[in-house]
């Protein structure tokens, strides 16, 4: 079956350099640097990545960071809590705009 997303494509991420190498090189260098142990541990960064992956709903990143967080020793409860953080922020981001909506409704109402 043809689908837009193919799990095998994840392994080919690096091939984006075929069409534009200098920018891809810069991106992958940057990417590698971002995920190194720093002020945050590599494990904390991996959990953030997993949460963001769910927020942006990228199946490739969800696949990659489900494995990466598990490899880095995160428990089932921890990965699920990370996703709840993403969900809470997404939900909150929707709801907080309710204030803007209310402002407008009040502005135009008698």
């Amino acid at each position, binding site marked *: 079956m043809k689908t837009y997303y193919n799990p095998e494509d994840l*392994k080919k991420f690096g091939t984006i350099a075929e069409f534009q190498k200098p920018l891809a090189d810069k991106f992958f260098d940057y990417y590698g640097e971002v995920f190194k*142990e720093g002020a945050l*541990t*590599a*494990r904390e960064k991996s959990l953030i990545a997993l949460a963001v992956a769910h927020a942006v709903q990228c199946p490739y990143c969800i696949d990659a960071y489900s*494995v990466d967080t*598990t*490899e*880095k*020793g995160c*428990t*089932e409860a921890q990965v699920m809590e990370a996703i709840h953080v993403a969900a809470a922020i997404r939900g909150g981001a929707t709801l907080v705009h309710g204030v803007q909506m209310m402002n407008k409704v009040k502005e135009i109402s008698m």
Partner: protein
Amino acid sequence: MDLKTLHKKQDQLAGSEYQLKVLNDDEKTGKKLARFSEKLTAILLFPLKPLALDIFQVNMGKMCNQVCQHCHVDAGPDRKEIMTRDTMQTCVDLIGQHQFTTVDLTGGAPELNPNFRWFVEEIRKVNPSCKIIVRCNLTIIVANKKYNDLPVFYKTNGIEVVSSLPFYSASRTDKQRGDGVFEDSMKALSILNAVGYGIENSGLILNLVYNPAGAFLPPDQTALEKEYKTELKNKYGITFNNLFAITNMPVSRYLNYLLQTGNYASYMEKLISAFNPAAANNVMCRNTLSIGWDGYIYDCDFNQMLDLKVEAKDSQHINDFNNDSLKKRNIIVNQHCYGCTAGAGSSCGGEVVG
């Protein structure tokens, strides 16, 4: 969890020939995977040669009180193959004669061999300065009253203890090693701590081994060690020296797990894409000899389980031990070797590149 060995179930995978067939069958992976020997050739390491004969590793038998899912030995309570005292005596003679720097005792559960204590004491007599390592599965210490004093015995003989603890939580440990194993392991670790093992400046070394509870690779050893130390100290008051992160080898029960869960192809690909030349340079077979329960000599414990005896034809058994031939031999490699060279690499002592 399945509590039977492959041997007991008379599973095809209990046989080494079938395992090697699977490991070399491209149909099982759906594509042709690079051969380990080709990878070594590309980095000028083939044929793989030993650098020294420092470590004398003895597998004292396949008998074990546990039946862990990932066990590459297919060990368990039903396995009766254990080393005899005569074979041990030959080992002792060799250990004295060649003054190996390290003697590494493994199994199964080496302590289940009725001659275990005698063997250790004899080794100490003929080679007082060597490091003796015992791969203790922890639960054996609390399995029966007669084993409760093992930590004291280890201490008396200056033994270094290396023990598996796949994770610092009960659920993940028990999934891999069996129900209640985590709790018993905590009890055993407390006893080891009480006699001084893993306590700073005691000189008694207690190292733990992490291995992934599933089809994934181990993380950075240093970061994980920190977490283990914090968690075990805070929750259970337990301390230890170092954590070794070990990759699961696609051999025996772990190979079975990979095949049964449909993870085999992706796991092999993962190992291969993580091939690290620096780790290949430092694989443990380059300074180790592995002795089977029946006295045959292998390049490592994994080759032992695949029945790949050392290539040196005149020195395949300890009765014919020939130092020169063994030093000159080519190490036998196969597709399972990718488990030793993935990422930071993996040996019985953990990562092989710093």
